[in-house]
């Protein structure tokens, strides 16, 4: 690596930044030099990373990241506890909350089943999910429409359906504002499968 010619602390900073997702050695170098020229930003960033790491933990109920346990969403009495929405990542909770459409509670799996990457049910928070089913009438699978997401939804559906819980899946189809002409065949086929009466 060319950054090995830099002074050791700078080389360490670059190689640490290069370990972040989506950042290659070139971008890492640019970021490192920028941080060196902006001491206040570096200070704030370092502090924010440390604070987030120390104060954030996983909620003991839904596994979302939180600074208080249970998290604000799990504590909120206004939320409908008969509906549970299962998502892959904590950031998916934020996306769903932005819609203001879902009034129930969430459960974060922290991944999906991925046999080729060696991720099985034990690596996800399925045990925690099974412990919080009392009073739940519907579980909404808001997992990504990929083969792995579907496999995870099917796995959970197999577990939950025999218990008499309604298991639903968010719709697949055309994005709002999208053009049918430019949509791919698979998406159009899914959209047709999921058509509904007007």
């Amino acid at each position, binding site marked *: 690596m060319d950054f090995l010619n830099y002074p050791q602390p700078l080389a360490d900073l670059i190689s640490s930044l290069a370990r972040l997702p989506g950042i290659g050695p070139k971008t890492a170098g640019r970021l490192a030099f920028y941080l060196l020229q902006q001491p206040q930003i570096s200070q704030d960033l370092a502090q924010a990373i440390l604070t987030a790491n120390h104060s954030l933990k996983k909620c003991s109920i839904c596994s979302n990241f939180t600074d208080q346990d249970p998290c604000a969403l799990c504590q909120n009495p206004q939320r409908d506890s008969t509906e549970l929405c299962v998502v892959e990542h904590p950031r998916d909770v934020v996306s769903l909350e932005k819609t203001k459409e879902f009034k129930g509670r969430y459960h974060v799996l922290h991944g999906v*089943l991925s046999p080729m990457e060696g991720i099985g049910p034990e690596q996800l928070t399925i045990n925690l999910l099974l412990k919080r089913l009392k009073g739940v009438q519907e579980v909404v699978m808001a997992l990504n429409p*990929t083969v792995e997401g579907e496999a995870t939804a099917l796995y959970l559906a*197999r*577990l939950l359906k025999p218990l008499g819980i309604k298991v639903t899946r968010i719709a697949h189809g055309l994005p709002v504002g999208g053009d049918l002409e430019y949509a*791919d065949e*698979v998406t159009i086929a899914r959209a047709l499968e999921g058509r509904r009466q007007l």
Partner: protein
Amino acid sequence: MAVYHADALVIRSREYGESDRVLTLFSREMGKIQAVAKGVRKPKSRQRAGAQLFTYGDFLIHKGKSLDTVSQCSPKESFSYLWSDLDRSLAASAMAELLDISTISGQPNAELFTLTLTCLFLLEQYETSLLLSAYALRLMVILGYRPHLGDCVECGERLQGERLFFSSEAGGTLCGRCRESYSGRMVRAGSIAFMRQLIQADLSKLDRLRWAAWMREEVLETLRHYLEHKFERPLKSWRLGNTISDGLERHIRSLNGKEGKEFE
């Protein structure tokens, strides 16, 4: 060759960067290819469907310095049944992983490509473990690792008896005299004969074969040992397929037990 076409199957797809995916494609003409499909995790991407695991399609790829880039893809078959059947999806994962670890980039193998594609089409109707076993055995035959089944690998003696000694190290069954220097496992003669049938039978008539639960377990376990020994690495999907079924049963048991009472 700045741009090339590939008639290929997506055998691996992992997230990369902000919204990209790195695809491992197995193509008829060029063998295994790694290529980045840019922006395919965004809802507006037109290549989204083609970048999904197990999609078979026509890919237009730009040659890059380190990684190639997918610039267009037209899916021909997306094997949609895999999206609604957990067991079949796990079997397809095991097949794809096996293909991935057993092949080297840039070495075409049309026979292996046809076998994989045929098996993915047949997987929709056939028993999953039967097809997976047949696929694994035939893949080994194509790659030159055909196991000796029924006669001794070392001396060629025709073997008889209820149970035969199978050694992954030796590459098949061994007689009493030759087995001493090898590690292995005892396998019922019926399972060995069934494995022979899995190699020889017409793939399209495979569903006529019947096997008992013990035979299925023994064949799958013997094969897993053999494959892992030959490729010198654990088969994650193959192992996880069993773990997932076990985990499902365990979770169901736990729900019917302690937690299940909460619903009564």
